[in-house]
């Protein structure tokens, strides 16, 4: 008989306080973000809801909505899931309680700073990466704190192997770090002003490499991790297939990175990149559905529980929407489909199916499962409200997405329609907007129902919290210390290479070595990125230069900054696609060489208003722009654009111009030192010319001397005009 003693048991407890904090933040910010969502939905149905204030116009609030729901609601939900499940899956408290708190309060401070700066018009104008450089640095620091805390926890774990949920958390932390840093490289031009180091087509490429993978690694992988922990816990059933977990994890991590360019089909990026984006998106279909299958089939044999448990209902509908969105994603990335869907509301419906259905419902399911456990109340305060919330949310999603799918199709089909004579059937863009307004009201109703559900969740949280015990009981657990890793499993001599690979036994060894595992995740993410990024930047033929394209004048740079600050890109694209109906409607299609001085690019991603790339050719009248910006409805009765009277009152700040030019010059825009130094004077002279033009039409316009509007007009008059001076234009 062996006299060897049992390994010594270690005692530890979990830090649930940090999870409670993140859950509170999730639910509260969620309600705020969705409230702003309803407000911006109202603004599209009726522009009066822009409230006549510059801080509350659609262009400034839409980024606030997207940032709040992505980084505040989904972000805090991710952290709650990671902090709760990792401690339990690793049988240890978090590495450092202090780092946990720095992470929590730091993240909330970042959210607050976003809520303050975005309405003020402080923005980089890069979708889902709008926050300006000081906040970007803060995000980096907080993310590093999170990473140290998480990997430190892996280090002190008492469980040798990592469960699949943790793989997804690792992928999230590694990939978001890479994406955030490389998409936020800038030249600083002021305390809250920067210019992207990339320009035009390359900037667009980087931004959508980031934008698409923010969906992948902020809204998908962490929520799959969440699913893998909370769904089998709530159902008390084994996960359907370990092999499927392995295969769909690695294929998602590797393939997702390539798919970004599908956001740029038919634009002036190189065609090979567009093709890669499409093909890898199509390949993503099954890896994504691997996650859906593992979620839904885990419930096999336990569907009776789903009927009885609102938490499982949230999960089932959430996973189903995940399956739907990840089928639709590859579909939308097929060029032919994209030619119809891009720039329309179809994209908006698609993301809301994913965001409200998948991210939202997985989060609410998790929160309801956690409430009685975190607050030690045995049950949530209002169990019946969960069921009510589930139905309000489900009906809300349908009421939102069905009309918006219809709106997207309507727009896409109307834009491309020709009549029998070969003319655009709907020559007035306004026609394609007014027809959508009833559908926009449906969206408001659907969004409102979803918001009411979120408010029910908030109330339930507070009522449950009120029932908490005077002092939380701190449970103490026992587990043996981590045993040393076994040597990596060797392939037995009688097992072939292929069957050894498909048996997945080699993977088991990886799961016991977090550092190696994380390294391979990093390799997958970085190598896939480099395959696309390096050629985009080094192959010169990707951006054929056009000699006639010159840098913007100092006043135009300043006007462009106004365009960015007001968030014009939220409704207006600057990209005419090579399609007959587009060139009929907007003018010659856009060439990559026209954007080489665009730091950052302003191609936009939707057309709630007309494309503006050729606006300088088509609308050269300063008076037109003045009157239109003062009140768009004066020019176009049914316009849903908010008015911008403040631009007619704000003084042009000539003093900032040299610093901005210097920043641009440092990025390679060919401004001479003299041009930089004389930037303010040159801007003044050009502003005086624009003013002369206005005064010719209306002597009263002299009161706009040295006002912001002159700079914006200068920029709009310049847009898309250089190419008319070109002797020869490369055709692609």
């Amino acid at each position, binding site marked *: 008989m062996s006299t060897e003693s049992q390994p010594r048991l270690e005692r530890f407890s979990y830090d649930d306080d940090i999870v409670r904090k993140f859950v509170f933040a999730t639910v509260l910010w969620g309600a705020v973000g969705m409230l702003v969502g309803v407000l911006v939905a109202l603004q599209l149905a009726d522009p009066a809801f822009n409230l006549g204030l510059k801080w509350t116009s659609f262009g400034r609030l839409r980024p606030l909505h997207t940032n709040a729901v992505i980084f505040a609601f989904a972000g805090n939900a991710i952290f709650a899931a990671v902090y709760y499940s990792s401690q339990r899956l690793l049988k240890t408290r978090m590495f450092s309680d202090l780092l946990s708190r720095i992470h929590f309060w730091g993240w909330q401070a970042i959210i607050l700073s976003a809520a303050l700066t975005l309405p003020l018009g402080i923005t980089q104008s890069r979708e889902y990466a709008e926050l300006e450089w000081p906040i970007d640095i803060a995000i980096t620091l907080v993310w590093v704190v999170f990473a140290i805390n998480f990997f430190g926890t892996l280090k002190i774990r008492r469980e040798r192997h990592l469960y699949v949920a943790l793989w997804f958390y690792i992928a999230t932390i590694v990939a978001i770090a890479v994406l955030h840093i490389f998409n936020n490289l800038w030249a600083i031009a002021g305390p809250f002003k920067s210019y992207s180091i990339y320009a035009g087509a390359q900037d667009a490429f980087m931004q959508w490499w980031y934008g698409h993978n923010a969906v992948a690694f902020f809204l998908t992988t962490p929520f799959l991790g969440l699913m893998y922990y909370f769904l089998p816990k709530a159902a008390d059933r084994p996960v359907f297939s370990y092999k499927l977990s392995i295969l769909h994890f690695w294929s998602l991590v590797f393939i997702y990175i390539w798919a970004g360019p599908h956001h740029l089909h038919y634009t002036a990026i190189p065609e090979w990149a567009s093709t890669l984006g499409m093909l890898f998106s199509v*390949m993503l279909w099954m890896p994504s559905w691997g996650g859906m*299958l593992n979620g839904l089939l885990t419930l096999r044999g336990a569907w009776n529980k789903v009927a009885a448990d609102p938490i499982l209902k949230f999960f089932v509908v959430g996973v189903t929407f995940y399956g739907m969105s990840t089928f639709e994603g590859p579909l939308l990335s097929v060029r032919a489909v994209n030619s119809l869907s891009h720039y329309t509301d179809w994209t908006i419906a698609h993301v809301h199916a994913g965001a409200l259905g998948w991210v939202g419902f997985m989060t609410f399911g998790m929160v309801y499962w956690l409430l009685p456990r975190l607050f030690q109340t045995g049950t949530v305060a209002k169990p019946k409200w969960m069921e009510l919330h589930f139905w309000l949310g489900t009906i809300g999603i349908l009421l939102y997405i069905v009309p918006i799918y219809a709106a997207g199709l309507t727009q896409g089909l109307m834009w491309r329609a020709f009549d029998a004579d070969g003319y655009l059937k709907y020559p007035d863009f306004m026609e394609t907007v007014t027809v959508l307004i009833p559908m926009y009201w449906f969206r408001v109703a659907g969004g409102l129902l979803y918001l009411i559900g979120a408010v029910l969740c908030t109330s339930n949280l507070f009522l449950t919290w009120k029932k908490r015990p005077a002092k939380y009981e701190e449970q103490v657990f026992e587990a043996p210390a981590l045993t040393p890793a076994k040597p990596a499993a060797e392939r037995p001599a009688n097992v072939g290479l292929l069957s050894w690979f498909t048996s997945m036994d080699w993977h088991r060894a990886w799961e016991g070595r977090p550092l190696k595992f994380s390294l391979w995740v990093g390799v997958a993410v970085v190598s896939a990125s480099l395959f696309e990024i390096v050629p985009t930047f080094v192959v010169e033929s990707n951006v054929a230069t056009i000699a006639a394209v010159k840098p913007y004048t100092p006043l135009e740079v300043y006007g462009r900054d106004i365009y960015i600050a007001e968030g014009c890109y939220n409704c207006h694209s600057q990209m005419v696609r090579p399609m007959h109906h587009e060139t009929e409607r907007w003018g010659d299609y856009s060439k990559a060489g026209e954007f080489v001085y665009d730091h950052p690019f302003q191609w936009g991603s939707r057309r709630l208003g007309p494309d503006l790339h050729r606006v300088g050719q088509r609308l050269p009248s300063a008076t037109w722009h003045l009157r239109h910006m003062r009140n768009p409805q004066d020019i176009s009765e049914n316009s849903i654009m908010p008015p911008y009277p403040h631009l007619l009152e704000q003084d042009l700040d000539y003093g900032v111009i040299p610093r901005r030019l210097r920043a641009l010059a440092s990025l390679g825009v060919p401004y001479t030192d003299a041009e930089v130094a004389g930037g303010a004077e040159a801007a003044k002279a050009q502003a005086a010319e624009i003013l002369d033009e206005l005064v010719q039409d209306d002597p009263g316009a002299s009161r706009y001397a040295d006002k912001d509007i002159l700079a914006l007009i200068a920029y709009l008059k310049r847009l898309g005009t250089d190419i008319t001076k070109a002797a020869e234009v490369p055709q692609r």
Partner: protein
Amino acid sequence: MTETQEPRDPNAPEAPVDQELLRAHEYDGIREYDNPLPGWWKMLFWATILFSIPYTIWYHVLGNDIYAAYEDEVAQAAPAGPTLETTAAGLMALMEDPLQLEKGRKIFERNCAACHTADGGGLVGPNLTDDHWIDVRRIEDIPEVVRKGVPAKGMTPWQGILSDDEIALVSAYVASLRGTTPANPKEPQGEVIPPWSAE
């Protein structure tokens, strides 16, 4: 799939966990089955990967790219060449043809209405319905103004954006607006000119 046919009755017994298929490990009470990958899942995954090859050949090698498609589309839509005359007589004739005027109206709505309003009453641009004209004396001046614009006053030069035929059609349509009653006419600008004539 079988799971959808199983009873949803909350009182129905839950299917027992299949111990045979379970993997040995367990995390915080979570177990995993060792189920094989679904066959249709594997097949579709391979299919989406293999699809890349024929698509890339079709698109990049056989030249079915978006620019080729665009050129085809434009070539099919374009008429053989300019067919309409912008002489006084030519424009007067177009004014008599409702089908041609209808084409002119569409071009006008797309390109001119932003400044002249859809009914020609004028806004930033002058009223096109009255007898006062700034740069036009005779009907054949209209296509000239459309072509070259009036850059000093903010009017777009449309040559290069509109085709010659489109310029003829829209000019005839503009001429036809004279004498109509717009909803919000702009005050007259320029001088009174004689009625249009073919001579």
